[in-house]
């Protein structure tokens, strides 16, 4: 990590720690103690450090921040699921916004592939968000738990294909001219890619969009298999386009949650900065960490959070 990177981390950690030391509220903790027995700054700081660790694990485990954020924070923190979903979407959105410009400039994220997919996914994310906010919390909690356990199964079983075999582009993708070329940095090889099964892929994004909006999870866990295994985009293009796609899908759902009032700034900023800084550290640790072990750990944490969400929803 460069000097600037370290400096930024120190500045941002200071932003979250200093109020505790110099705020007038800190001078009289007893007067500022909230109803749950903690001073006001307790939960934002805990949230910051937990999301910081979550950001590290997200990078090392190869998952997005949103998919870890919603089940873990809703399961183990005192925040209502409405606010956790609103914040989860903003967390996933910020990660996608931060990564998007670079991926587009490098031509790894394909705008041509993303535009039709995003049109469907973002429309359906709005519908998902509206369904999610209309249903009773326990139903959402149960569905969230089941979805998280399903994601664990997907992470355990789904294979990835670096360069899927696409013998012939389908008619729709040919008409839309969805194809591209990129250079594989490790080998210098020029890779010409095209996609197939476009109508089926687009149909799958109806479900992915609804789920992203309903649970505030982000949707990288579903985007990548759909783009890579079903539609046949190379893995690098799929991962990059998926990340960029989240900036559009999550935008639509985030507005629904925001307009409904599901955003509390006290929760949003520590979460967002924690995940972003954790991701920066995670990228550095990637060189020395054992990804397989971390991935198993992430799956185990997700499974635990999924069971916790199910039990909360069922009232156990």
């Amino acid at each position, binding site marked *: 990590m460069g000097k600037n990177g370290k400096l930024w981390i120190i500045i941002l950690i200071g932003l979250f720690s200093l109020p505790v030391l110099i705020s007038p509220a800190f001078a009289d903790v007893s007067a*500022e103690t909230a109803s749950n027995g903690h001073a006001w700054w307790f939960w934002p700081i805990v949230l910051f450090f937990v999301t910081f660790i979550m950001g590290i694990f997200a990078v090392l485990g190869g998952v997005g921040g949103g998919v870890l954020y919603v089940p873990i924070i809703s399961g183990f923190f005192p925040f209502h699921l409405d606010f956790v979903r609103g914040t989860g979407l903003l967390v996933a959105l910020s990660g996608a916004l931060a990564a998007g*410009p670079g991926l587009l400039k490098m031509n790894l994220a394909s705008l041509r592939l993303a535009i039709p997919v995003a049109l469907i996914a973002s429309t359906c994310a709005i519908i998902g968000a509206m369904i999610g906010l209309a249903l009773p919390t326990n139903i959402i909690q149960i569905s969230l738990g089941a979805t998280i356990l399903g994601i664990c199964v997907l992470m355990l079983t789904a294979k990835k294909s670096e360069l899927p075999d696409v013998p012939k582009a389908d008619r729709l993708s040919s008409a839309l001219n969805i194809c591209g070329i*990129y250079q594989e940095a490790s080998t210098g090889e020029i890779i010409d890619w095209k996609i197939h099964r476009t109508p089926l892929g687009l149909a799958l994004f109806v479900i992915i969009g609804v789920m992203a909006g309903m649970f505030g999870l982000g949707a990288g866990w579903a985007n990548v298999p759909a783009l890579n295994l079903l539609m046949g985009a190379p893995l690098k293009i799929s991962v990059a386009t998926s990340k960029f796609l989240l900036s559009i899908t999550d935008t639509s759902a985030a507005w629904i949650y925001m*307009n409904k009032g599901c955003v509390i700034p006290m929760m949003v900023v520590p979460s967002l900065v924690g995940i972003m800084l954790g991701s920066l550290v995670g990228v550095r640790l990637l060189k020395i960490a054992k990804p397989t072990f971390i991935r198993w750990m992430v799956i185990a944490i997700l499974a635990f959070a999924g069971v916790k969400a199910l039990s909360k929803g069922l009232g156990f």
Partner: protein
Amino acid sequence: MDEKSTASLEATPEQLLYARILEKGMYLGLLILFITYALYVFGIMDPYIPLDKVSDYWSMNVNDYLEHAEIKNGWAWLGMLKYGDFINFIGIALLAGVTIICYAAIVPTLLKSKDTVYAIMAILEVIILSAAASGILAVGH
């Protein structure tokens, strides 16, 4: 590598334009968010909900929170920007709105290159995201 493949390796003009606007919007949104959050938690601006009372609300569902805190949803936050907590919504709205600007910006480029289908899809996306942002798609428990 021949000239043709070199040209194709580069991102299209509309993709580069989208990336540039997204980058600027993202940095500006984050910067505003950090500044306004500092104004909020350092007590430089008084919040609408006192800092020690926020935790009374975040365990409620959103409808109860709005009712008990006497907050209107939608774009009502624009009228409450004098408060330290609500000023944070400027940065959040910018982060959530930059994609709409990106899409609107690439429409002329797509039309110029006679990419009508993609121009129509970009316009549709602007309409859909604007509808979501406008607050007309209201829901309730």
